[in-house]
């Protein structure tokens, strides 16, 4: 059973990462910076629990706030550019964050082990959960409480006027601007929310793996972050969850026995899924079906 709880933890962490990109994508912006925000959350939360001895919850919240702050600061200049230029700008930011942690050393002695970030060798012994006797099930429940909170918050946001504004900007910037929407404010707000959620995800990730290093936060993670909402579809936050389960649960875990063929099949299945369901695995039609199943009327 521990294995399934472990899988639930992993899927939860990646769902938060995907949700952080989802909210930015709603405004039509493709951000490759989510891995950078994720890294900031991971390192800061790890430092707060390991070096400062904080409880995990305030450590996570402070790390998420710091990530959100960085996202805001990065958002202003980065969101002045569009399309491919934005991809390049946010990718460059993500790499800058990774390189920062690659060169960042701050260690203290804990028993017979030196702990804290040590540049390229990473940051080990982030053992808050086992050291405090949390079972695998406890950790899974804890993670999913955050995931559900983030999903509910985004779902509510999506159904509110704010959500309409985000989608309006994503659909047609010119039209949105012509009705008085402040594009910069909307985009930066989305980036800030995304940074907060990515920071939360990173904070949990560090404590899930117990060891982090700069290589964990490279271009591949940034690509996964953006792939989840694109593959899942932007109709609902549920799409992100379905995409994470499809990639982490099915492609990575179920196909593990295939060795190198798994890597080939991995790409092929994603291409196939995007061709068969171009609007995402969980598109508007699937959303309507789900609503009907639960007895809700179509809008």
């Amino acid at each position: 059973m521990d294995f399934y709880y472990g899988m639930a933890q992993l899927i939860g962490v990646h769902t938060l990462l995907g949700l952080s990109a989802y909210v930015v994508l709603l405004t039509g912006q493709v951000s490759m910076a989510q891995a950078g925000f994720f890294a900031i959350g991971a390192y800061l939360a790890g430092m707060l629990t390991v070096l400062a001895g904080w409880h995990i919850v305030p450590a996570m919240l402070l790390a998420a706030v710091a990530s959100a702050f960085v996202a805001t600061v990065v958002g202003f200049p980065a969101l002045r550019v569009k399309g491919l230029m934005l991809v390049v700008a946010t990718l460059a930011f993500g790499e800058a964050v990774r390189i920062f942690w690659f060169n960042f050393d701050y260690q203290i002695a804990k028993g017979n082990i030196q702990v804290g970030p040590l540049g390229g060798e990473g940051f080990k012994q982030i053992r808050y959960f086992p050291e405090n006797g949390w079972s695998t099930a406890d950790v899974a429940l804890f993670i999913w409480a955050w995931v559900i909170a983030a999903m509910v918050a985004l779902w509510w946001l999506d159904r509110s006027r704010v959500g309409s504004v985000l989608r309006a900007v994503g659909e047609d910037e010119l039209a949105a601007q012509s009705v008085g929407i402040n594009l910069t404010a909307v985009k930066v707000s989305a980036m800030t929310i995304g940074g907060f959620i990515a920071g939360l995800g990173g904070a949990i990730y560090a404590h899930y793996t117990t060891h982090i290093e700069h290589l964990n936060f490279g271009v591949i993670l940034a690509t996964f972050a953006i792939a989840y909402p694109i593959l899942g579809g932007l109709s609902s936050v549920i799409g992100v969850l379905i995409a994470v389960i499809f990639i982490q649960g099915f492609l990575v875990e179920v196909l593990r026995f295939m060795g190198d063929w798994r890597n080939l099949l991995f790409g092929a299945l994603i291409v196939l899924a995007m061709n068969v369901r171009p609007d995402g695995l969980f598109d508007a039609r699937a959303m309507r079906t789900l609503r009907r199943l639960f007895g809700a009327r179509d809008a």
Partner: protein
Amino acid sequence: MKRLLTIAAALGVAMSVGTAADAADRTVKIAGFGAMSGVVRSFGINTQAVMQAAAKAINEAGGVKLADGSMAPMEVTFDDDRCNAEEGISVVRRLASGDAVVGVGPTCSNVAEPLFGILQAKAGDEGDSGLQFPIFTDTAIKGGLAKISEWAFRNVPNESQMYKSLFEWLASQHPDAKSVYGGVEEDFAHSRFTWYKVMKTRSADVGYEVKGESKWLLNDTNFTTQVREMKRAGADIIAISAHPFTTCGVLKEMARQRVKYKVLVGLTSSSSLETLNGCAKQAEGIIIPTSFAPVNPEAVAAADAAAALGGSADLHSAAAWEIMMILKDVIEAAGIQATADSVQADRMAIRDGLANLKTTKGLLGEIQRTDEGEAVKPYVYVHADDGSWAVLHDPNA
């Protein structure tokens, strides 16, 4: 009465058949895991072949003796973790949820480090909810990892000692060599650690002038700038701390730029078939300390058995052979049950057995075990000689 005796006899026969069947059904499950895909997949492929070859040898000799005196075969499974920390954790959680009594792996230090972190730090500490699953590592070689958890053990060579000894020997053999220049695969935990914490410091300890280092990444394919820096430094000894793939790229570029040196030193992990397959001509003469070479009948037999199953025995995979033999001895001494109900007790018995080891048998001689779960293994220096690895010097001889 006759009927009663007949029933009793029938029950007795049924029970004895059942017991025999139970013994026959019992297997000692050893779960290997490592990189079977990606850039470093050859390490996992070799380890899998060597583990299966060792299990075959053990089973052909009768198997493993259990607590009740019956013999059970060893069964080896192997999972791919793609040299990825998240996947390594998932694999080990799945193994720990199953009936494997011990895990053997992983390939990569960046997987071993988080993996050991999710294990219980101190065995028997009820306040620590970490996994209670013994892991015996054959390949992940970055220094000092086993002390993270008392459930983690390693049978990897002590590089610090090996390179100290190598540089001392080089100083005696090449008194004209005065300086060292490094080449380091900067983003790989093992190669980075070995250059900065081992090669660089150990060569300086011997009195060599360290003229600096060139840096590259595991996935790099162009080394022009790095080799130009290397050539400009003009050091007598070039020490390359990188895995076979980039080692070969750098050696080819060094040949192209006609870099001159007196001695070429390589990383332990590069004393493998991959290096010779990739760049035998350019690697000619490179000196590497290794804890495995087919220099005695037992080592030759292990290498042949691995080759028969499509693998290659090198310093990493040969460690897996030693691990299987050590596990057989530990399991027999600990007296495990190998039943569905005894899995956790068996794991604890194996952990305790491994923790109490002071010495074990190795393919090159006796291996010392430290209190921190590490090994101090005998080693030799090999060099690439006409397309194969040949023993250059045996410090223990």
